[in-house]
């Protein structure tokens, strides 16, 4: 167990270094930050001086080594766009993204399971047909369009919900939350729906497929033979066995929701990490891009590590020996 954890941790560190290396080798292609950092009056010489001051004229392996050296010390430098410490920026933006991601994941899981179970139990009903058709929309429509559509209906036409921003937020230490104010809660609704919609359809389809599979299993047939009521079979026996892969998927999806809320955050002007990254890319703000990519890699490493360790605890077969019989 201990050796396993150490091995996973070492792999995780390797992943971080690899991500930093690959992203650094690509930064040359996003453009020259100096072009954005100086006004149009700056002379060729001014630009050259600034590039040299920032070390941008060094070959990129040198820049990479310098970045890694500072990153180990926890220093990511100052944003070329805002002149502020990158670590401050990330800390400031993190709560918005985490709040959005966690609520979206919760929304997607809850309704995904509900709809999935319903569609699996009533395979031919009108309700499940509607749900299945709706899920096709969720899978095929781009997030951008869903977001704009929601804004059009709920902000412009009905004027119920705000179209952008986070509303009023409350400070809890360094964390900020929109959950404690009315405008904050209202502002969350549309982005959460937009970000969660794709995950919802994914989970729903997964639950339905798994459930249909489990309902055909032997132990369900035996349960029926024992005369257990159908509802109890569905909810207690079938659903529980369905949830194992669903929990895994939902957990892994949380990581990608945190990392890739970029589109939703841009549409709703949500002040999170995704919006920070988009601005950084357009400005060629190398320190912010580098730190953000490292952060995303770290999130994935941690999530994967946690899932790996959970497997180890949950599934006895992973422990050495494999003496336990197969089966659910």
């Amino acid at each position, binding site marked *: 167990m201990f050796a396993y954890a150490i091995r996973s941790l070492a792999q995780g560190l390797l992943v971080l270094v690899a991500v930093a290396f690959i992203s650094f080798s690509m930064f040359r292609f996003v453009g020259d*930050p100096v072009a954005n950092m100086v*006004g149009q009056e700056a002379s060729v010489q001014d630009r050259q001086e600034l590039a040299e*001051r920032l070390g941008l004229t060094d070959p990129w392996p040198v820049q990479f080594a310098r970045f890694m050296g500072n990153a180990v010390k926890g220093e990511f430098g100052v944003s070329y766009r*805002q*002149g502020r410490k990158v670590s401050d920026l990330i800390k400031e933006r993190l709560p918005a993204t985490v709040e959005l991601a966690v609520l979206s994941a919760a929304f997607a899981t809850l309704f995904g399971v509900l709809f999935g179970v319903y569609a699996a139990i009533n395979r031919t009903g009108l309700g499940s047909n509607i749900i299945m058709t709706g899920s096709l929309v969720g899978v095929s429509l781009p997030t951008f369009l869903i977001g704009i559509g929601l804004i059009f209906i709920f902000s412009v036409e009905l004027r119920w919900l705000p179209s*952008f921003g986070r509303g009023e937020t409350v400070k809890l230490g360094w964390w900020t939350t929109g959950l404690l104010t009315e405008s904050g809660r209202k502002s969350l609704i549309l982005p959460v729906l937009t970000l969660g919609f794709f995950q919802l359809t994914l989970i729903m389809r997964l639950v339905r497929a798994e459930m249909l599979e489990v309902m055909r299993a032997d132990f369900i047939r035996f349960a029926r033979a024992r005369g257990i009521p159908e509802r109890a079979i569905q909810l207690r026996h079938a659903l529980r066995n369905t949830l194992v892969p669903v929990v895994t998927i939902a957990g892994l999806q949380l990581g990608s929701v945190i990392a890739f809320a970029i589109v939703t955050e841009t549409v709703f002007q949500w002040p999170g990490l995704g919006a920070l990254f988009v601005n950084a890319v357009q400005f060629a703000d190398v320190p912010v891009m580098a730190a953000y990519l490292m952060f995303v890699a770290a999130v994935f490493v941690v999530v994967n590590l946690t899932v790996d360790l959970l497997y180890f605890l949950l599934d006895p077969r992973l422990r050495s020996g494999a003496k336990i019989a197969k089966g659910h």
Partner: protein
Amino acid sequence: MKVSKTSLWAALIATTMLVGAAEARTLKWARSGDSLTLDPHGQNEGPTTALNGHIYEALTERDHTGKLLPALATSWRVLPDDAKVWEFKIRPGVKFHDGSALTADDVVFSYQRAMQPTSDFKGLLTDVVEAKKVDDLTVHIVTKGPNPLLVNNTQQIHIMSKAWAEKHNATKAQDFKNKEENHSVRNANGTGPYILVSREPDVKTVMKRNDNYWGKGAVPHGISEIIYTPIKQDATRVAALLSGEIDFVQDVPVQDIERLKSGKGLRINSGPENRTIFFGMNVSKDDLKSDNVEGKNPFADKRVRQAMNMAINRSAIQRVVMRGESVPTGVIMPPFVTGWTKELDAAPTTDVAAAKKLLADAGYPNGFSTTLHCPNDRYVNDEAICQAAVGMWGQIGIKVNLVSQSKSIHFTLIQKNPPETDFYLVGWGVPTFDSHYIFSFLYQTRTGSAGSWNATRYSDKDVDAKIVSLTTETNIEKRNATIADIWKTLKDEAIYLPVHHQSLSYAMKDAFDIPVDVSNTPKLKSVAVK
């Protein structure tokens, strides 16, 4: 009759509240990008200047038509006995937001700060030797040689409080090499019509009316509070206006203007911007890698450039690509600039047959192929302009391969030495409102600080000499004659292919009437509220 005390109080409170409601008018202002920093000398960039200009002020200011007016200086002149010295009289009685008085020390300090290596405004003051205090309300700015243009640059140099900067360790303009944030990046102490209340970069900036503003009686100053929120996504920004969450939107997408015009309770103001869009090309004799012509450069032949200029159907671009939001032109100079004339502005009529003949005369009866570099996130519909022009050149046999990319890549191609593009689109605004600014950046031979945006490799000794002479010529008539002379040569050479002057549209609730500002830096102090 006995009136109860309570009802009297209630009536009193009600009236004061009514008055309060009439006076307190908040303006919620949105545009696509945020100010990058509040440091007055940190970033010389449009949205930054527009926001910061409400908190900080300069010696002079420009109104929305571009006219130069006194601001923190009441008057200025070149000393009669020394043409190298500009004298500025500082407005008496001006207070910074922290209550301290503005003196010559603050002005001298601010100019010194703007001239530091980390300042982004040093390029405007390369000619300045020093700024020195004469007395509490008089400042002398000494230039290397006589500089009749200096006053045009003063409206961009914001004045900050020396004592405040020293107290907060912000005496240097922000430095991106620092490990710590400069205090002035998120805090401000200016003399402007609005006082910073709170700032969350990229989220929200709140400013309240400065009730001790020196220009209180002279400007309407009707807006009591400004809430500035950047909204990056076009559709969201327009939706926020339609839903009533925003009062004033800049950067209105051209395809939405018609729809907004028919919107109830909305007002659209349109007008020309101080910015011209044009194509530039490598006109040197060297063979180009980016074309299929061996041994020579087709762009070096004036007839080819004239043919390409003639092939551009400017009115089609105006109608289809810009939906009317542009003014076609034949010169790369906005109409507000000294030296602009109607004759220069006239564009050649589109004539495909004549263009083809010119090309054939130049030795390219079957045309040639080349590569055009175009930004896709900088000017209004920049990529679409390029696409349209590519089609038009196709009609005369010039096959253009279009490369559109983000501004951070595109502008680097132009600025690299030597430039890495032979054919490109660029837009140019003229903050000094003088032709010299265009000549020195876009036409002068690239040496030292001159010609930094001249990626055409155009280099003409005579023209260079005339451009340089403009900087020291104090006789206005003689100077204007030289400007006209230079333009005549340059227009005939067709070094650049002008497309249009970009127009601007502001959309707002009809309770406000904010005129389009030619520099796209709205001045909200001059807005009255109905």
